């Protein structure tokens, strides 16, 4: 909290100094020549083509690798080795409608392929599939009234992987203040997920065999597949059944207010209210009780989350931009967290910047968390997933951004190239590295 107070005192002082500087500048230039050309007289920035056109294409790619020894699949012990290769494309289309409102249609498609060593231990012998893919298309349509400074949009989202499907919808609205120096925004989101009930192998029912009158028999497997087998051992018919799923719903309202403080500083206040209900555990996470017996993670079917944050970006001198962020988080499972980050973007030239960054995160444990063999069998809820444990983490790295006027590598259409590398470490021994690339085409 001390850091917040000091930051706000700092902002306030900066604002006051800038007000004085501007006031003295205005006084000194009181006798403006009568022939001065008004900026609005020849302003051509309002020129906007009306036709539907592809404005921007973004290609992104990312490689993530992780290691640790507290996997939730094996009850808070065991390997957490993961690799994830993520690729995607975002297309932005623009057009003006009859009322000259700006319309933006964003179409996105992402594809991830991951390997996860712990997934193999869903089967007790380590023989389960240790990887998978995820595909996630998205769509967003926003209408912006530039004269009134308002915008309204709707979005849809889907994410599909073998054991988890998610469908999302959102509505978002924003309005600028009369002087266009502040903006208030609201985003309502709903995610409707299905968790496939894949249990650790020791909890999967053994196949059942039922003899039917004709002398054949029916085998029903744990996943519900049925095979009718003749007495000679020949499969007469089979029917596949999908594994049952359980729903998980997430509803959220996200509020934001941004304000330009002066010509170098702007801030944004963010606050979300999130409610989750349904099956919030994961069926293949084990928990080992203090008596040595294991079971499946069990968490309450409802969770409220309230994160609030502030961003402040400051243009220092002519070529340094400070990008800062702070968030306080609390939820109904008893977890509290603080996140603070600072990025210093140094413009080597107007078209090339280097941005080292550092992020610090600390959270307290949820009341349902205990490490391996620390839970009592009489506990109502239990998890050994270290995501809910107490830890601190550091994340640091560097980013590069190139936006040359003649295009990256002289290719006019490739207007932007961003590369970023980061190293992440938790006090739980989990470490990861991520490298990401974004290419922007116009």
């Amino acid at each position, binding site marked *: 909290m001390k850091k917040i*107070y000091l930051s*706000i*005192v700092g902002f306030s002082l900066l*604002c006051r100094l*800038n*007000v004085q500087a*501007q006031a003295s500048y205005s006084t000194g230039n009181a006798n403006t020549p009568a022939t001065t050309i008004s*900026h609005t007289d020849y302003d051509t920035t309002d020129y906007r083509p009306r036709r539907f056109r592809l404005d921007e294409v*973004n290609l*992104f790619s990312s490689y*993530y690798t992780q290691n640790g020894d507290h996997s939730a699949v094996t009850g808070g012990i065991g390997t957490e080795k*993961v690799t994830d290769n*993520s690729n995607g494309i975002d297309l932005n289309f623009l057009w003006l409608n009859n009322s000259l409102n700006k319309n933006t249609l964003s179409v996105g498609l992402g594809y991830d392929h991951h390997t996860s060593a712990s997934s193999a231990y869903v089967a007790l012998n380590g023989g389960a599939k240790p990887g998978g893919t995820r595909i996630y298309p998205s769509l967003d349509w926003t209408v912006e009234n530039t004269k009134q400074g308002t915008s309204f949009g709707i979005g849809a*989202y889907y*994410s599909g992987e073998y*054991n*988890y499907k*998610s469908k*999302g919808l959102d509505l978002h609205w924003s309005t600028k203040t009369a002087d266009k*120096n502040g903006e208030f925004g609201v985003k309502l989101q709903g995610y409707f*997920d299905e968790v496939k009930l894949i249990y650790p192998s020791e909890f999967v029912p053994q196949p059942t065999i039922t003899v039917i009158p004709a002398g054949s028999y029916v085998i029903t497997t744990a996943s519900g597949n049925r095979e009718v087998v003749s007495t000679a051992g020949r499969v007469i018919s089979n029917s596949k059944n999908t594994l049952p799923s359980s729903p998980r719903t*997430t509803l*959220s309202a*996200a509020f*934001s207010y941004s*304000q*330009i*403080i*002066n*010509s*170098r500083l702007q801030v944004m206040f*963010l606050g*979300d209210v999130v409610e989750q209900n349904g099956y919030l555990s994961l069926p*293949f*996470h084990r928990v080992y009780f203090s008596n040595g017996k294991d079971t499946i993670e069990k968490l309450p079917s409802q969770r409220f*989350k309230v*994160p609030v*944050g502030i*961003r402040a*970006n400051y*243009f220092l001198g002519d070529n340094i*931009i400070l990008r800062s*962020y702070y968030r306080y*988080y609390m*939820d109904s*499972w008893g*977890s509290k*967290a603080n996140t603070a980050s600072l990025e210093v973007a140094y413009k080597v030239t107007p078209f090339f910047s280097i941005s080292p960054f550092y992020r610090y*995160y600390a*959270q307290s444990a949820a009341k349902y968390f205990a490490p391996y063999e620390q839970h009592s069998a009489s506990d109502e809820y239990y998890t050994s997933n270290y*995501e*809910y444990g107490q830890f601190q983490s550091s994340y640091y790295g560097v980013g590069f951004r190139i*936006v040359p006027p003649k295009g990256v590598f002289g290719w006019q259409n490739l207007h932007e190239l*961003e590369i*970023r590398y980061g190293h992440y470490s938790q006090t739980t021994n*989990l470490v*990861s590295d*991520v490298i*990401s690339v974004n290419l*922007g085409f116009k």
Partner: protein
Amino acid sequence: MIKYLTKILFLALLIVSFSSCVHLKEYQKNRINDSEMALTNRKVEKNELNFESYRESASGANAGKTGGGCGCN
């Protein structure tokens, strides 16, 4: 008591900060409009926000997603 005082002090400082905001005309916003000054996440941060929300309890208040996707590996 100290808790209430700190809250009041926090609110007072917020009000003082905003009372000294300067009204800028569009042509005075050259620094504010610099693309790196945007109060949003960078496009290249997309995957980072994903893994942070899966590895940590806290999420939200960062103009990102608040749900969807398993991330359970």
